[in-house]
């Protein structure tokens, strides 16, 4: 594939990617290998670049809100929430407190389903398929709740500039309470199957390490940064929606597991603890839910005429399941915003792959790449070039390598 693919000396070049049939966001990796050990990493994203910002700069904010729903298939709230918050600041729109609480509840439900989805993917990459099915089975409860509250499993269409489009009725409260009861106690079970498992520990402990300093220098966000000990959680640091009223703490790997080491294992710990935290936050929201309107302005033409007059710039920022999500919007009195810049969380985490993967083995690539939760999609097609002859490795082969390593450890 590359110019040096014919050379017969180390380091060997191994391209991985860019497409994967199961998950989204393809990324092309090129590894320089010496034997089994990764010497250097290069990656090329952009295979799924759809020019959404360009499209947005030709649409009005109400249309863009629906476009933002479609930026990510898993994070349906965070982008529309970031964008709506930016526009609300420019047009000085006051969001009713009840809408802020509904936004927070959905934001946390989304975090739960996203982390459980990730837990399943991680288990699959390690070769624990029963655990993969179990994780996705328990994830369904949060998907059902989201469907109950918004009407959709993905592309929720719940956020509107100035509030939310659907209220939580009194009938829906017990449904949420039931869902939360289902997840209480789940952490102990997840801890037993993930964290207390000696094979998972040996596959993940001290692998894919990102140091505290590197996490800072490379601008890592979310669980990736927190697993390295960087206390960086927008919900705790920078009040938005209902978080200013709630008791939220930043989840760092606790001392009982050896403190923050910044490895794959710590990233599992942080995500599992955050699922437990989300249950608590939703309960706080339900207990303190204010009454009142859910939209600043119900009539869309009226809303649009206000937005058309808006001048200024603002930053909308939320803590997505994968880390900080940020939208910069600038409006200059036209229908469409003059500038719209989307910064998704994986955008900030990409650079962290380089120190994580250096020195690791080929079989550890899938779990380390997945450990930043990149909507991982890259380990589809691998061509290993050794002594000038090329052999194609598929995603299945790579997963098999990873599993064989687990089996070897099981036999020891």
């Amino acid at each position, binding site marked *: 594939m590359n110019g040096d693919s014919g050379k017969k000396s180390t380091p060997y070049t191994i391209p991985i990617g860019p497409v994967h049939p199961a998950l989204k966001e393809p990324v092309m990796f090129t590894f320089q290998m010496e034997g089994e050990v990764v010497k250097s990493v290069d990656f090329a994203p952009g295979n799924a*670049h759809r020019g959404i910002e360009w499209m947005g700069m030709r649409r009005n904010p109400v249309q863009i809100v629906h476009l933002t729903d479609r930026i990510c298939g898993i994070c349906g709230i965070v982008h529309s929430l970031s964008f709506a918050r930016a526009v609300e600041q420019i047009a000085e729109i006051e969001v009713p407190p009840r809408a802020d609480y509904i936004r927070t509840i959905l934001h946390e439900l989304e975090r739960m389903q996203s982390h459980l989805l990730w837990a399943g993917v991680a288990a699959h990459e390690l070769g624990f398929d029963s655990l993969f099915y179990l994780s996705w089975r328990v994830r369904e409860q949060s998907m059902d709740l989201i469907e109950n509250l918004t009407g959709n499993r993905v592309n929720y269409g719940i956020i509107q500039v100035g509030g939310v489009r659907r209220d939580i009725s009194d009938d829906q409260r017990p449904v949420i309470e039931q869902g939360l009861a289902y997840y209480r106690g789940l952490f102990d079970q997840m801890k037993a199957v993930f964290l207390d498992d000696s094979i998972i520990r040996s596959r993940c402990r001290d692998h894919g390490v990102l140091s505290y300093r590197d996490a800072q220098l490379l601008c890592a966000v979310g669980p990736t940064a927190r697993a390295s000990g960087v206390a960086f959680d927008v919900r705790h640091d*920078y009040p938005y929606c209902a978080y200013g009223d709630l008791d939220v703490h930043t989840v760092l790997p606790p001392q009982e597991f050896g403190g923050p080491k910044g490895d794959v294992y710590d990233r599992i710990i942080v995500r599992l603890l955050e699922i437990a935290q989300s249950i608590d936050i939703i309960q706080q929201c339900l207990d303190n839910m204010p009454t009142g309107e859910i939209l600043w302005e119900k009539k869309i033409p009226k809303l649009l005429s206000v937005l058309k007059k808006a001048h200024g710039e603002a930053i909308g920022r939320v803590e997505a399941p994968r880390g900080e999500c940020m939208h910069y919007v600038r409006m200059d009195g036209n229908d469409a915003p003059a500038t719209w810049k989307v910064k998704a969380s994986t955008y900030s985490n990409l650079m962290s792959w380089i120190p994580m993967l250096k020195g690791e083995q080929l079989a550890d690539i899938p779990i380390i790449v997945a450990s930043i939760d990149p909507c991982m999609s890259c380990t589809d097609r691998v061509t290993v070039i050794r002594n000038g002859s090329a052999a194609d490795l598929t995603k299945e082969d790579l997963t098999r390598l990873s599993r064989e390593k687990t089996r070897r450890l099981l036999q020891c």
Partner: protein
Amino acid sequence: MNETPHLSPQEIVDLYKTEFGTGIQDARITERGEGVRKTKGYNVWIRVDRALLKPAIKKLIDMRFPHLAVIAGNDLGTEIELLYIFSVFYGTKFGEYMVTIGIRLPKTDLTVPTITDLIPGALISEREKQEFFGITVTGIPDGRRLFIPDEFPQGVYPWRKDETGIKPEMVRELWAIGRPKDRPAPPVPEKKPLQEESAAEGKKEKTGGAPE
């Protein structure tokens, strides 16, 4: 690293004004409270002379190592404005602020020094600004394209609003192109248009010959 104590947004602005004086073109603070208690979050916006970009970022780093969220950009007609969006004092309960440092580059001289020597993680954002705004980041350790494919024409910068932006002939409207012809049939037959068969055939001929 010496860490200065936690400062208020106004103290940050004052610090910059005393340090850089007339080099600060504009400094303002915006605030926003949401929820029931309306706990305030603050954004600090500082516009500096282009020569002061790196000293201004260095000042921020000396204060407390900031998080670089992204570099955003505005096409203002004769100038491109770059906004380096940071957050400082993260980790303190409701004490984090966004600090945005903005510079303007005239379109006759679109060069800006790299900040990857201060914050290596800025590389992704700098590569993106090069390909989307056509600016040149001097000293960038890796100047390849990031998101835009290699076959995308040179000299076209998607976020520019002038003649170097996306040209109308590059835009293909999905509604006009219709379903690609080289794909398997959809599981559910497509809805027939309301017009007569012949009218639909005529339309297909018109749009079927779309380029590529």
